[in-house]
């Protein structure tokens, strides 16, 4: 009967869930401290062209300037954090690490990153939102050379045909979406799925209306959710938004199946490959006149993991400083449809890239997701996307959804 026991054991063991096996990467031993630094390792998630090559150019430029070589590794976006955790446990973090900006505070809170202020990097002249995103406990840990945000794309041809102006208020948005909806076409597409992405897309409505992540049970937040609910329940947006990603929303828009969409400038290269779809961008509409559109800041910050090799750590900080130089910011912003983070550059930038005018304007008032809650932000984001799901599927009213989602 031994074999049967083993069969049972085996069967049980196959049910073993995937656990993060903290397997070590290549054992990069750092060079003796004090020696001149000749190379840096870099990790980022720009793993697809054109971004991969464009970022490479910027990295190479700074490497040349500092007289070093770089070994760059790129991984798919959704695996970066897991990679970072593996490397952290095997003490093989890179010299320069790119992080999505909402993750900076969480990683900084673990004590893995070097405070940049101590290494001669300051955030003078940067937009406040991006300083907030890169700071933890009053210290600067990450800096983003360029940022992005989300705004409202619209199909110029469809709006002209329907005689609709790009909406400036929520009422106009709802009316326009309704008017633009036809069989086989929705007025608007957005993403309300059960991930952080769904929460991120809800923020323009929530923040513009004065809602705040520290008090999700406020009427302002409920009103924002009412907007999403109205759009779906009136049929102006597909019920599928509860499963869509931002990529799906873009696909609908590019295929002419949505007349407007909430999305970011990183979709522009892809939209350019469907030249028959002509589009424009406006800031996210406001609920009441007098409000300022406030959207979340996106984009990636560059950080310097703690390194026993002081010389290397200093070099890495110099490298980050170079990446956020005026020159590099403008080059990256132009090439990758993103917005420079040094406010002094914005006017020059919009002059050079007029199609980014609305996004640039939107970035000026954009907020960092982790600005108020820091490493506690993911908990709030979870409540937000759960509440959005409850309301859009009709399981709760917009007024009750947040209470229910937070377990109240």
């Amino acid at each position, binding site marked *: 009967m031994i*074999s049967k026991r083993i069969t049972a054991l085996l069967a049980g063991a196959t049910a073993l869930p995937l656990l*993060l096996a903290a397997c070590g990467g290549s054992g990069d031993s750092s060079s003796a401290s004090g020696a001149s630094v000749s190379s840096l390792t870099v990790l980022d998630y720009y793993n697809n062209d054109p971004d991969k090559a464009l970022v490479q150019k910027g990295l190479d430029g700074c490497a040349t300037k500092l007289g070093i070589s770089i070994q760059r590794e790129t991984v798919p976006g959704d695996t970066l954090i897991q990679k970072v955790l593996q490397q952290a446990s095997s003490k093989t973090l890179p010299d320069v690490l790119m992080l999505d900006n909402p993750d900076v505070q969480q990683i900084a809170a*673990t004590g893995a990153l070097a405070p940049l202020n101590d290494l001669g990097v300051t955030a003078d002249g940067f937009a406040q939102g991006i300083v907030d995103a890169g700071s933890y406990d009053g210290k600067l840990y990450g800096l983003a050379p360029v940022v992005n945000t989300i705004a409202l794309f619209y199909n110029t041809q469809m709006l002209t045909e329907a005689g609709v102006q790009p909406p400036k208020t929520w009422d106009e948005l709802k009316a326009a979406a309704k008017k633009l909806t036809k069989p086989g076409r929705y007025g608007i597409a957005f993403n309300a799925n059960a991930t952080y992405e769904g929460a991120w897309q809800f923020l323009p409505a929530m923040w513009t209306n004065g809602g705040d992540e520290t008090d999700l049970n406020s009427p302002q937040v409920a009103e924002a959710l009412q907007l999403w609910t109205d759009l779906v329940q009136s049929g102006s947006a597909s019920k599928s938004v509860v*499963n869509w990603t931002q990529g799906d929303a873009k696909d609908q828009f590019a295929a002419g199946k949505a007349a407007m969409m909430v999305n970011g400038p990183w979709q522009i290269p892809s939209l350019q490959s469907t030249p028959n779809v002509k589009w424009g961008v406006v800031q996210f509409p406001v609920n009441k006149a007098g409000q300022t559109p406030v959207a979340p800041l996106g984009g990636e910050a560059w950080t310097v993991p703690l390194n026993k090799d002081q010389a290397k750590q200093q070099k890495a900080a110099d490298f980050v400083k170079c990446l956020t130089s005026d020159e590099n910011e403008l080059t990256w912003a132009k090439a990758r449809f993103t917005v420079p983070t040094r406010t002094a550059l914005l006017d020059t930038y919009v002059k050079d890239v007029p199609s980014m005018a609305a996004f640039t304007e939107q970035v000026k008032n954009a907020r960092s997701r982790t600005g108020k809650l820091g490493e506690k932000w993911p908990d709030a984001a*979870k409540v937000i996307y*759960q509440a959005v799901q409850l309301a859009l599927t009709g399981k709760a009213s917009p007024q009750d959804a947040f209470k229910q989602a937070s377990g109240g």
Partner: protein
Amino acid sequence: MADGTLTRTAVRRWPRAAGRGRRGEELTKILFVLPAAVAMVALFGYPVVKNLLMSLQDYGLRTFFTGEAPFVGLANYTAMVKDQLFSQAMVNTGLFTIGSIAFQFAIGLGLALFFRRRFPLSGFLRSMLLLPWLLPLIVSSATWRSILEQDNGILNRTLIGAGLLDDPVPWLNSPSVALIAVIGVNVWIGIPFNVTLLYSGLTEIPDELYEAGQLDGATGWSAFVHITWPNLRAVASVVLMLGVVYTIKVLDIILGLTGGGPANATQTLATQSYERSFVDFKFGEGAALSNLLIALSFLFAIFYLRGTRRAVDE
């Protein structure tokens, strides 16, 4: 994959060991099994123990950097049970597992019986049936997601085009339908496994039994009840047991289709375990949930193997 070997050992009839030379024989047996046992302890034992320990620790993001994971007793298990989604995840896991197994098995058995008859192209068709099994799960779920899409999905378009429906079904968008859709896709993926094992079980039933049965007037349904099913029972138990063990922890299909949504309608213990670990970085709580899954799998494994043993020993 160990599936093939597993079934075969379990299905083979075990001769009662004869008395003589039993000790030496036992020793030889143990020596044969030893390398495999060592490998198993290293490959399966370590993670199981590690997972048990992890579930008793405050194992979070910080742990990876500092290496510190203080023991917290049963706090992770308490948090797991207190979680407002726990009961829903339990119910969903139950519905998902029972629903998937019932249909996979019934359809699988039907197809296996069908293919037992000899007809042209049966071999080809049988190999085509394996396709869902061969596809990477992430591909299957992405494909099914587009098939089940409410507005443009091929399924709704076909059903409406054929006049069977007036309005599109919100397969993945409605909390009341999504779990059914997800079970449906999982059934589709699980059918080949059931067909393959049940078919091989059927081919081991000697034709003479049916011939003899025919003389006694046992044909059709009564042949199935009196000849096929009793002879297939051992295989069936193993198929069901493995089915439960595989299904209870299904993750990729659900993540690919709905990500646990809409409004948590498709959250199971497995998706919750994944979320706690890799979205919330609360690895201790994730481990607690996966230990619960392991315990449940074990329970079923023991239950079914007992049943099998009795059926075989008869």
